[in-house]
């Protein structure tokens, strides 16, 4: 018992220090924060595309611009809220105009939208390629094999609202089951294992396309739109806090193919951070486009970000 007490007495101040450490806004940590503020990046862990882009951006900011970086994994709602409040500095995972539309509509005055960092996203109803239909309007004819269920994701996601619209537009006799990204992927894995029929709300880019043979159901009425992009959003404080980071983010654009290379390295067992570093080493040209040599850490004096 006495032994425990002793440990506890040591742990408490350590824990308090730990709490103070990463928050540069707190009084008392000013001197430490003055060097270079930590850049906090929000991303959605369950969406593997976000893991790839967040780690890539983190590696650039850490290694080329010299800022400490903290990656914070959250659900999309808190991620948007965090950027709007300035608790997070940025996210490169804003799916517009579709999946994250609800958040953007609510918070667009409180974040800065730097525009797309990746074009060519897509959402829609997805089935394994052994499912014998090709169009959304054929769904009613195979209702029994699919048990009248569309397996969905998080209730607030734009893809869910679009699917409700599709159910109405095509007169589908289906219920949309709410779950989460991880549960949807688990259901797909289970169906694939036994070659059972399933229809899910799916999107690109996602690792499921590399793992299984899947297809989008054609959408003649265009409910799901023509495909969208992933945007970069930053907090309104970031330009004052770290202008070099903003300059980099404005230039940061890559392609689904490039993102796929990072996702594949992660799927093969590499850590996301290592995969991002490796990708950067192999692609000096892209990096030079995003971060011109003049912006490298050696030329930017500490604190230079304070005067935009």
């Amino acid at each position, binding site marked *: 018992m006495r032994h425990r007490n002793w440990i506890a007495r040591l742990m408490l101040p350590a824990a308090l220090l730990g709490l103070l450490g990463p928050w540069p806004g707190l009084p008392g940590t000013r001197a430490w924060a003055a060097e270079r503020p930590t850049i906090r990046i929000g991303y959605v862990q369950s969406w593997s595309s976000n893991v790839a882009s967040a780690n890539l951006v983190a590696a650039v900011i850490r290694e080329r611009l010299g800022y400490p970086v903290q*990656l914070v994994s959250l659900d999309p*709602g808190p991620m948007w809220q965090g950027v709007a409040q300035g608790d997070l500095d940025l996210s490169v995972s804003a799916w517009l105009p579709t999946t994250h539309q609800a958040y953007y509509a609510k918070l667009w005055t409180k974040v800065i939208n730097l525009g797309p960092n990746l074009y060519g996203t897509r959402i829609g109803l997805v089935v394994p390629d052994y499912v014998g239909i090709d169009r959304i309007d054929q769904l009613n004819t195979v209702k029994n094999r699919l048990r009248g269920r569309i397996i969905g994701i998080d*209730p607030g996601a734009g893809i869910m609202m679009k699917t409700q619209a599709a159910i109405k537009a095509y007169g589908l006799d289906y219920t949309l089951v709410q779950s989460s990204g991880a*549960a949807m992927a*688990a*259901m797909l*894995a289970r169906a694939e294992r*036994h070659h059972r029929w399933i229809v899910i709300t799916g999107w690109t880019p996602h690792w499921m396309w590399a793992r299984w043979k899947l297809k989008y159901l054609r959408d003649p009425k265009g409910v799901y739109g023509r495909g969208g992009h992933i945007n970069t959003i930053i907090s309104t404080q970031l330009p004052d806090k770290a202008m070099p980071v903003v300059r980099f983010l404005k230039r940061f654009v890559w392609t689904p193919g490039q993102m796929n290379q990072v996702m594949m390295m992660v799927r093969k067992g590499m850590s996301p951070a290592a995969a991002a570093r490796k990708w950067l080493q192999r692609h000096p040209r892209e990096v030079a486009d995003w971060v011109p040599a003049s912006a490298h850490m050696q030329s930017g004096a500490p604190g230079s970000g304070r005067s935009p």
Partner: protein
Amino acid sequence: MSAGPTQALLPFSVPVGSWAEHAVNFLLDHYDAPFQHFSAALYAMIAALQGALLAVPAPLMIGLLGLLAGWSAGLRAGLFAIGGLLLAHNMGLWHSTVTTLGLVVSAEVLVLVVGLPLGILAARSDLVDRGLRPMLDLMQTMPAFVYLIPAVMLFGLGLVPGVISTFIFSIPPLIRLTNLGIRQVPADLVEASEAFGATWLQTLAKVQLPVALPSIMAGVNQSIMLGLSMVVIAAMIGSGGLGKEVLEGITRLQVGSGFEAGLAVVILAIVLDRITQGIGVRKRRRR
């Protein structure tokens, strides 16, 4: 933030993760049909219970729960139950509240059916007790998401994995407290009943269980509370009810509707807490 390269302390790596994965895959490959049947049977039971609860008109249900709370925990609890449930109804959450009640009650029925015998066994045998304890620790502290996803793969989405994960999370306190309650029955009481020639079953039913009842009811109470705390997590695998409303509210950044649904969970928790706690206390008073 990422951990650096780790130095191996052992000359080999223990493949814990791949064992777990193989176990799940083995179950998926070889026991798919039994899991489907079990899942369907359990679904029928839960759906029947929920249907029955939903069929009761709201005023009647509110009155009944109010009476139950009043009978078991006094006038104030009864009035709170009626007022709180009226508020839940007023917020347009009645259907979700009853759905959640059905989910929690189904899980609790399973908890009782499995947990009571296990608790009794653990009280009778130190070996069982020692074997169960690490299992119970595992069930209580393993983060729910770890077994939620395998549960989805085995049982699909919806009510069944929701009830099963709630069951796993909330059974340990009942087993522990049943075990404890029976072990704390004074030895002279048990000896006396044995001296009068009672079989062990008679001793159990007439002496040990009645004396241990307050402790067992505390276990029931705890497991219901834990069950309610699983409601939101279970909604992530599509089990519906108030958890769904909470998730919908927070994922759409609608703080108000998320709070309303959360409040309904609290009301339901307090009502169930007073009812089950009251039963244990009443029994103790009567002795």
